[in-house]
């Protein structure tokens, strides 16, 4: 099988998309749903406390109002706040060069992935990768739990994406995570 190779220079957008993808990997849909349910429950508890406080003329109403506001924040604004913070930090990281050399060449072969940049060259068998995550914008190749490389999907055509994803699904098995396919 011919390896699928991509040449690219990482942009600020790619780094931000990569950081968002990592956030999605760390906090998948189930965690988000759990967070929303807890926020909703807190909101309901807050509303009940407000009602009881108003009826009994107790200061409980103020605490209830605080609970309700916290519940709304947890249910609806935690994720957007996280995303905004992560985007900001990724942008700063790109500006300070923390994402490494922008120009890279990555090949997905039948046995492993090959990475080439100015300071880093590697031929890593799929079994030695920690994980691979894929969403609509990027592929994240994890060489360790805290080391990942961003492969922007804009660098591949539709056929290339399909080939890479089927190759990764076949070789990485449980270690290949696709957004929306959990």
């Amino acid at each position: 099988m011919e390896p699928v190779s991509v040449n690219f220079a990482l942009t600020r957008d790619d780094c931000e998309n990569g950081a968002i993808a990592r956030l999605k990997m760390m906090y998948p849909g189930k965690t988000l749903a759990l967070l929303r349910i807890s926020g909703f429950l807190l909101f309901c508890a807050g509303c009940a406390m407000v009602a009881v406080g108003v009826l009994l003329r107790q200061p409980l109403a103020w605490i209830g109002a605080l609970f309700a506001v916290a519940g709304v924040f947890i249910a609806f604004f935690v994720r957007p706040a996280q995303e905004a913070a992560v985007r900001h930090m990724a942008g700063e990281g790109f500006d300070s060069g923390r994402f490494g050399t922008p120009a890279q060449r990555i090949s997905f072969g039948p046995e492993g992935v090959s990475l080439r940049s100015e300071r880093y060259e590697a031929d890593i068998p799929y079994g030695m990768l920690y994980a691979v995550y894929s969403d609509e914008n990027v592929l994240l190749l994890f060489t360790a739990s805290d080391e990942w490389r961003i492969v922007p999907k804009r660098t591949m055509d539709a056929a290339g994406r399909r080939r890479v994803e089927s190759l990764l699904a076949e070789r990485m098995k449980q270690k290949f995570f696709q957004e929306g396919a959990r």
Partner: protein
Amino acid sequence: MTKQEHPPAVETEQTLTAEDFIEAAAAAEYFAHPMRRRSVRAAICLTAAAISASLVSACGRHPELRPLPIWAAAILLLLAAVFFFGQPKARARRVLAWLGTCPLAGLPAKVAVRADCVALESRCEKMTEYFTDFSLCVETDRLVAAVGGRERNLLVVKKEGLPPERAKALSGLFRYGFDGRWYRLSGKGVS
């Protein structure tokens, strides 16, 4: 303009073990985060416990409140013991968990330490890490650990097994390259 002369490069071969990474992580954390040292954390807890215990006498008019500072002092004492005795084990567990996710870090590698960078080559990887990218470097009796690399956050170069003159040259290169960000940790007193 005169050309500055750099010390000669030192080349070595190494295979890092879990113990090396645990020691390197402990040494690096000791200087990178002084407030996270177990002795500092335990001392903070002991001070808070002492302050809490001293509040018992302040509860003279309200004897029903006396158990509160006593309980707080007991919890803080327990926390001090947890930090002092449990922190090294927790760190070792964390490092082992990381190493389990990064089999590349444990491969036998050729290391070339130069005046401004380290080049590592294993059967899967070849990387060059410049000293300017790292935040600090700590040298112990057995190894040199640098934190904050672009390709690998924790870079470890073993001194153990090297002839004394080469170990000294290696140490000199790191000291020269990191200058004010170079630290020395003697003995096994890493906490």
